[in-house]
């Protein structure tokens, strides 16, 4: 193996000669490259604020719009990865940094994604005057904020849980910190990272629709993309166009799944240390093409050769400035000083934020916003309870039948990736038609896209229950309510909590788009903190946006700390099957 990488590529080793698979692979790759180049050029186009960007509802323009959206998603994913690696590494390696970085990440995670957009868009536009790139960056940044945090968390957790013996082995063989990071710690984190990337992209699809149609200082900018297409279609009450957009979205998500995630997942199996990685799993067709086509061998050997020389250079350099051994821990006094400084900075920030908000906002209004938060909290709680009542029994009965579960899993995964906000107009039409109360009937929209996490996790939790435990229950004659109470509910609890946390977090986030829904010139309002934020984002009122987002964050954090975190700890301690 070692030798093969070192061979000069001009020698054209036999395994690199083109074969039939290249016939399929080459057009795919070249086509993709051309598309990326074209999209990149389009992004840099000239633009003056105030210039109208028209979106055509012609379905034939959709593939082009879809491509622009996909490129935005891809860019955000790359940025998310670039953010996650150093952030997670720093948090995992330094106890001091961990003290700041992890709570910050926790808060960032609870900030509603669209909140980031309303705060940052003006700055980005100022960064690239006269070009569309500023707006593009703001949109990509918004998608990034919907993707990055859970990826960073997953990587941080993986870095913290590298098996001790592997770390010790790495130290015994004198791997430098740099080598250890890439040879041991990152590979260990790859499988969970890829799962989180999939979840991130699902979240991204949801917000891409909202982040392409941006309102800045009363002017709406429509970036060419599926999101803007949908926004325009909603504005013009064109149900046909929404149907086309739905169809294209379906195809795009399917392609993402087939071309990116299936191969990545299959590939990531080799990093797993547990025994079930041995199974004769089915290889996704695209991975097969990539592994069979000689072109990719060539690509791979080039990349590996490059990587090797880079590695060698860095290793040579890092021996001096990156010791393989942990550095001396700082003294207790230094740590206390650091903590005090941290506390001071945090207090100052809180005081400043309160002062900023209090300039424009009365105490009564703050109280009102807290009440709005409670209303939205009530919605989230009721919806999660309802979704659980529906999906837990269904998930269990699917999970008990492996053949059905196998077929249902990809469908549920797909549903969770599908941006539910595409269906919002239908809700408006229904509410108007039947003259329903929007306070109640807009609420289900919050959970439309996130309920699948509950179903998905319950199926997985049920399927993971060892067969012998089921047999014991049957042998002892445990049935009906006793069976649910003593066996099934405890068995799926850890998986259920994971699913419910994700669903609840998603619902909070979705409240901003779900509590105010438009259809043409009809706007339906539900009273809640999401509607409050959406309203003042449109009006461009920074103090009230900050207040809304701040209160929403507090609610989310309170729920996470007081409810979900405790349930999670409980489930890990008592109910884990291993």
């Amino acid at each position, binding site marked *: 193996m070692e030798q093969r990488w070192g061979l000069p590529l001009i020698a054209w080793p036999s395994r690199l000669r083109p074969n039939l698979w290249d016939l399929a692979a080459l057009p795919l790759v070249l086509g993709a490259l051309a598309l990326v180049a074209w999209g990149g050029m389009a992004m840099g186009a000239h633009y003056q604020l105030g210039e109208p960007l028209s979106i055509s509802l012609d379905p034939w323009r959709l593939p082009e719009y879809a491509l622009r959206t996909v490129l935005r998603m891809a860019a955000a994913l790359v940025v998310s990865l670039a953010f996650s690696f150093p952030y997670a590494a720093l948090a995992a390696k330094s106890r001091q940094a961990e003290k700041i970085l992890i709570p910050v990440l926790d808060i960032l995670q609870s900030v509603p994604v669209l909140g980031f957009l309303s705060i940052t868009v003006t700055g980005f536009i100022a960064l690239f005057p006269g070009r569309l790139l500023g707006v593009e960056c703001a949109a990509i940044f918004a998608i990034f904020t919907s993707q990055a945090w859970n990826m960073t968390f997953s990587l941080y957790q993986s870095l913290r849980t590298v098996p001790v013996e592997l770390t010790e082995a790495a130290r015994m063989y004198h791997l430098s910190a740099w080598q250890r990071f890439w040879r041991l710690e990152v590979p260990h984190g790859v499988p969970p990272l890829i799962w989180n990337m999939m979840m991130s992209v699902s979240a991204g699809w949801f917000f891409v629709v909202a982040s392409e149609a941006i309102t800045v200082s009363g002017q709406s900018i429509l970036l060419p993309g599926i999101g803007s297409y949908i926004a325009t279609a909603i504005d013009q009450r064109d149900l046909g166009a929404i149907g086309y957009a739905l169809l294209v979205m379906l195809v795009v998500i399917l392609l993402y799944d087939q071309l990116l995630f299936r191969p990545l997942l299959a590939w990531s199996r080799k990093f797993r240390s547990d025994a079930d990685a041995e199974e*004769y799993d089915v290889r996704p067709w695209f991975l097969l093409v990539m592994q*069979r086509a000689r072109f990719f061998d060539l690509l791979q050997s080039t990349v590996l050769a490059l990587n090797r020389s880079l590695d060698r250079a860095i290793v040579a350099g890092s021996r001096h400035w990156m010791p393989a051994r942990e550095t001396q821990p700082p003294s207790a006094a230094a740590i206390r000083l650091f903590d005090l400084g941290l506390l001071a900075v945090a207090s100052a920030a809180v005081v400043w934020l309160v002062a900023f908000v209090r300039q424009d906002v009365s105490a009564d209004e703050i109280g009102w916003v807290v009440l709005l938060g409670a209303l939205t909290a009530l919605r989230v709680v009721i919806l999660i309870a309802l979704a659980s009542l529906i999906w837990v029994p269904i998930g269990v009965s699917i999970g008990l039948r492996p053949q059905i579960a196998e077929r249902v899993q990809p469908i549920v995964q797909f549903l969770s990736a599908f941006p539910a906000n595409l269906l919002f107009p239908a809700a408006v039409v229904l509410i108007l038609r039947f003259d329903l109360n929007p306070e109640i009937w807009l609420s289900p929209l919050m959970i439309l896209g996130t309920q699948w996490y509950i179903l998905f996790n319950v199926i997985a939790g049920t399927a993971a229950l060892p067969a012998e435990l089921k*047999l*014991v229950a*049957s042998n002892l004659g*445990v049935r009906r309510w*006793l069976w649910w109470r*003593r066996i099934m509910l*405890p068995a799926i609890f850890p998986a259920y909590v994971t699913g419910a946390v994700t669903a609840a977090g998603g619902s909070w986030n979705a409240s901003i788009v779900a509590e105010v829904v438009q259809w043409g010139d009809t706007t339906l309002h539900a009273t809640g903190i999401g509607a409050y934020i959406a309203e003042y984002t449109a009006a461009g009122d920074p103090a009230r946006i900050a207040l809304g987002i701040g209160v929403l964050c507090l609610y989310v954090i309170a729920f996470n700390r007081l409810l979900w975190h405790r349930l999670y700890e409980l489930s890990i301690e008592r109910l*884990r099957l291993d």
Partner: protein
Amino acid sequence: MSLVAERLTTSSTTAPPLRAIGLSKTYRTPDHIGRLVLGSVDFTLREGEIVAILGKSGAGKSTFLRILAGLLAPSAGRVEYRGEPVIGPVHGIAMVFQSFALFPWLTVLGNVELGLEAQGVSAAERRRRAVEAIDVIGLDGFETAYPKELSGGMQQRVSFARALVVNPDILLLDEPFSQLDVLTAETLRNDLLDLWVERRIPTKGIVIVSHNIEEAVDMADRILIFSSDPGRISAEVPVHLPHPRSPEDPVFRQIVDQVYTLLTTVPGRDARRGAKPEPIGVGYRLPDAPVQQLSALLEKLGEEPYNGRADLPHLADEENLTTDELLPLLELLQLLGFANVSGGDIELTMAGRRYAEADMLSRKQIFAEALIKQVPLAAHIRRVLDERPGHRAPAARFLRELEDHLSEEEAERVLDTVINWGRHAEIFAYDDDDRVLSLENF
């Protein structure tokens, strides 16, 4: 003896406690042909006896036990519990599993009470009986512990308490001691036998699937030997020894020898009959024997004190091999023509001696020759690779062929096994990433 007799006379009903008539089980394969794992088994459990079931892995022993328990439906035939047909789990039959199968979220008490709770026993009564059962099985003081706080031996005791608390008429044990270390297993086994012999449990019959010959001879009144493809009862060995039994007793040793003989006879390869070995097919269920162990065993057999000949129970004891490890090794040795096994003894053939005395490189060569000559699947793979222009073939190709003869998992296991041997013998290479077999590098 006397106790068994007494149990027999106290029987009030005429129907035997448990009876299986013409049991068959077919598992469906992907191509819907169906594979017979259990072929027409007749079995009667008599009042007051312990029956042990021994056999190679894959002989359908666990399937048989699960059908007796009413956990699996047979494809043909029926099970009767005291004359009544068994069509699902019945009160009166309890089962203990190999993996303990305790619910991690329930305490020891919670686990033991579960069966009573399912029967609708009142809370106070439940508590009283569960505490009693925990006491009987020697776990008092651990009522409020969670299973993961306990050692393996104690977990299995909980599992026994859970089965015994419902006062089972019949106890079915699926290799209950195989996941415990030797000492713990023996203690628990003796405790169970004491309860049984002293009649401190109301149980009228025990069926135990075992992988340990001495364990079976120590416990059972009757030992059934299962053979595979399809699983059926190929022999029955009665054990007329009073409890407690001593492994040093010559009669005990003789029975152990007899069971070894029955278990290690490869069909058509019984050396005593002097017949030419019957050829095996491509779809033969190859034994799961690692080459390294084979090599080590042959080397040991070639040296002092064995000098090419050994008594199997003695060998297993000396070399610390469980029956599960020893049986596949013996089968492979016989398949390759390296040894003959008969009458509970093993004797190296000329080829076997040659292997034992050779150096590492020549050993590979001898192994490769034997593999091509004696294992049709290995020869078949090599032939296909030789004939193909690129000398490459995906593993899936052979997997499909094997699935004509074996279940999906068995086909995978057999292919993995032969790939392992073939790689060691260097008769072909295998790329695990692409799952392709090839003649690369030679």
